[in-house]
């Protein structure tokens, strides 16, 4: 017997799958940022900060490609939008690392 998900159109299944990934990554981000207890008062370990930024980049990529439909646009536009997101995160990561090195 086909599951309810299997009866949905491919485009709808893709949306639901993307949504599930985005929700999961948000929860992973919150967990890796160690929001509870005394750990919240400490600087994040580098692996955790890296995971946080990588998951943010992937989430932004998914929203651009699937929610906004850039998947069907030309590669130049895909590159421009993804490049802008990556540039933003590189700026943030550089500032973050410089602040850590300076302290």
């Amino acid at each position, binding site marked *: 017997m086909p599951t309810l998900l299997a009866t949905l159109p491919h485009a709808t299944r893709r949306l639901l799958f993307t949504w599930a990934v985005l929700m999961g990554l948000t929860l992973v981000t*919150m967990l890796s940022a160690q929001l509870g207890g005394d750990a919240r008062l400490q600087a994040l370990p580098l692996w955790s900060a890296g995971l946080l*930024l990588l998951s943010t980049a992937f989430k932004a990529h998914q929203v651009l490609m699937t929610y906004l439909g850039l998947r069907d646009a030309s590669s130049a536009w895909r590159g421009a939008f993804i490049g802008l997101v990556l540039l933003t995160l590189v700026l943030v990561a550089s500032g973050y690392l410089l602040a850590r090195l300076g302290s």
Partner: protein
Amino acid sequence: MPQRKEAYPRPVPNPGWGPLSTLPGNPLMWVLILSEMVVFAAFFGLFAWLRIGEREVFDASRQLLDPVAGGINTLVLLTSGLFAALAVQAISAGRIRRCRQWLAGAFALGVAFCVVKVMEYADKLGAGLVPETNTFFTFYYLLTGFHFAHVLFGLGLIALVAWRISHDNVETAAAFWHMVDLIWILLYPVIYLLR
């Protein structure tokens, strides 16, 4: 001789729009999306730059925020974005009633986001944390406030297209709403989490 599927050129969504013709939905909305992303990228870069010189102030101030509320708002906005995307699919299939239902869902979750944000602002202002408190809170109010204004505009847009419903209108409003989503996805870790 059978040709591979990839050999056929795909129809361009917006013929006559030059370089913008391959973008889905209203091309002018993409100009707005790109310009908004550039503005927020500049603000995020400036925020990261200023943190280098005031790390203690930024980290102490960040501890006064509620990252769980911010996380819940991320989940709410992502789900609202899903509903907006499903509304576009519904209108594409000619299912107007279903489209309005998805838009109503997206709108309701957008309102939920606003309620959480207003509670957060009330809490911070009640504690005497205002934009003049320090550089961190200047940016906190500037970035989240600017984003909040976009959420309110997006809610107005969703309400408008639910009333004057058409494929182009729904697709354009949904694209704006996804941009609001995208900015929050970048804003949440930068302001609330990265310490």
